[in-house]
């Protein structure tokens, strides 16, 4: 293990290390903790310039209540879920198939198609912006959740294919060969042999895509406009315009908007990290 395990070092070093951990964490998360503190302060604290002192009264319940019952925030949150969940399902389903095709079969254009997916996944969004917006307009899906979902599914398929294909490559190929010898059709091999083995990859990808899509801002701005279809990342700017200078409410709103992927991360941490770091070790 590197660096040298702290247990094997002098007592003083151990104590220093243990003391430094929380200090470092506080510094690291400082800006975020500041927002958390803001979100429980009463409005009066900001007019009295009591920014960093203790809250003169604890108004957490009131501030978060405002966010949930007196703004469009619940609407935006719902939109975010209605955009994110179908995207996760769609992208994972499509990429299970593409990943299977590229991971199992040997055909001449295999590597080229794979690279097409990988390259497309790295493309800057701006070069897609105008044509995708036009396409969405033509389909009559501008300013709808469906329009956003369709694009997200298509774009995420690139990354998901990269992920799934590499995962399937690492599976024991003998299993598939054995199934073929038995005369099992390719579709049944996919469904009954490979898919059950892909469960960890599906879990990891789902959590990852959930976070990516939830946090998307660019496409939300390009393809949607109003509260009826905008997800929370885009909605928060209108929210902030509505509560201009009400820092306690803007803070509470930000925290609410950030929470679902954070919850997802803590609940599914193992899968999340497995997904992110695929390929970081050999």
């Amino acid at each position, binding site marked *: *293990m*590197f*660096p040298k*395990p*702290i247990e094997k070092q002098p007592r003083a070093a*151990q104590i220093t290390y243990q003391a430094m*951990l929380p200090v*470092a*964490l506080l510094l*690291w*998360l*400082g*800006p*975020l903790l*500041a927002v958390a503190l*803001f979100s429980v302060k009463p409005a009066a604290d900001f007019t009295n*310039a009591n920014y*960093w002192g203790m809250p003169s009264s604890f108004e957490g319940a009131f501030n978060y209540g405002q966010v949930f019952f007196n703004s469009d925030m619940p609407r935006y949150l719902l939109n975010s879920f209605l955009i994110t969940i179908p995207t996760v399902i769609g992208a994972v389903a499509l990429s299970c*198939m593409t990943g299977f095709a590229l991971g*199992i079969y040997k*055909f001449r254009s*295999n590597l080229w*198609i794979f*690279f*097409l*997916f*990988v390259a*497309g996944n*790295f*493309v*800057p*969004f*701006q*070069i*897609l*912006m*105008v*044509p995708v917006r036009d*396409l969405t307009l033509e389909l009559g899906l501008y300013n709808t959740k469906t329009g956003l979902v*369709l*694009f997200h599914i*298509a*774009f995420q*398929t*690139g990354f998901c294919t990269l992920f799934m294909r590499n995962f399937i490559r690492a599976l024991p190929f003998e299993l598939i060969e054995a199934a073929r010898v038995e005369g099992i059709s390719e579709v049944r091999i996919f469904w009954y042999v490979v898919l059950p083995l892909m469960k960890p990859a599906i879990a990891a990808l789902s959590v990852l895509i959930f976070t990516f899509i939830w*946090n998307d*801002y660019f496409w939300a*701005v390009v393809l949607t406009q109003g509260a009826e279809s905008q997800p929370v*990342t885009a909605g928060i*700017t209108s929210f902030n315009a509505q509560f201009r200078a009400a820092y306690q409410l803007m803070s509470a709103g*930000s925290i609410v908007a950030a929470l679902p*992927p*954070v919850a997802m*991360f*803590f609940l599914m941490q193992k899968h999340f*990290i497995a997904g*992110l770091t695929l*390929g*970081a070790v*050999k």
Partner: protein
Amino acid sequence: MTTAAEAPEQESWFHRNQQRIAPWLFLAPGLLFFMVYVIIPVFQSFNLSLYEWDGLGAAEYVGFRNYEDLYWEWVDRDAFFISLKNNLIWLILYLAAIPAGLFIALFLNQTVWGIRLYKSLFFFPFVISQVVVGLVFTWFYDPTFGLLNEFLAFFGLGPLNVLGDERFVTYGIIVAGLWPQTAYCMILYLTGLNAVDPEQIEAGRLDGAKGWRMLWHIILPQLRPATFIAFVVTIIGALRSFDLISIMTQGGPFGSSRVLAYYMFEVALSEYGFRMGYGAAIAVILFLIMLCFIAYFLWSMYREERGH
């Protein structure tokens, strides 16, 4: 196999060629989607960059005039020049996330009580949306109450209006971007460090290697896959920077914090006008910059594939 004998000719053809047809059937839906929404639009943008179009009326073919205009903006040190310059600053400074992530990973790579929770909490910024990161840092820099200025005031310095000053604004936004990016690199390295071969470390220790020498000669070579991925995601992240700029400054003050990604959006889709063709030309430039890196990534992957 009696059923096979009774089956009509076509089905047996399908059966015989199953292994050749199956991959295309599995690929079809995903590939179709990807083509329509990603690959074809890239070419459409290339084409569009030769037109002048407001997004509604008829498009007018103007040849390379959009690129000529961009060239003059470059010569005049105008918006395009500033955006490109800022993109370069982003690219270079963003790479700091890699050593910073490695540093934090080394700091946290211990097995003391509660370390798992510490690792998760250090990773926290990456999970939060960039929109929220942008808001958090806007307040952090706020000249009247921001934590930064409270901190500077403690040393008798400031106040400093980071986001309102043309000299500092880009650096201020990059720092905000480095926060989640460092967390990402950290998690990559933590996973990489987990897989470092303990025998090599022991062998190194016996040879008297420690500290920096150990890190440089024994640990880093084994972390190469993690470094490669950290490099890829950091470069892509730097060139994609849009959310933070849009939230924190909207390209300001006086357009001094624009990057190509944001400038393109501003030109094509904001109150400053709907110049789709001009925007497409900017996007093409950004794409060509990205293409250099994409080609390098694919080339590395290709070598890897051949190695197998």
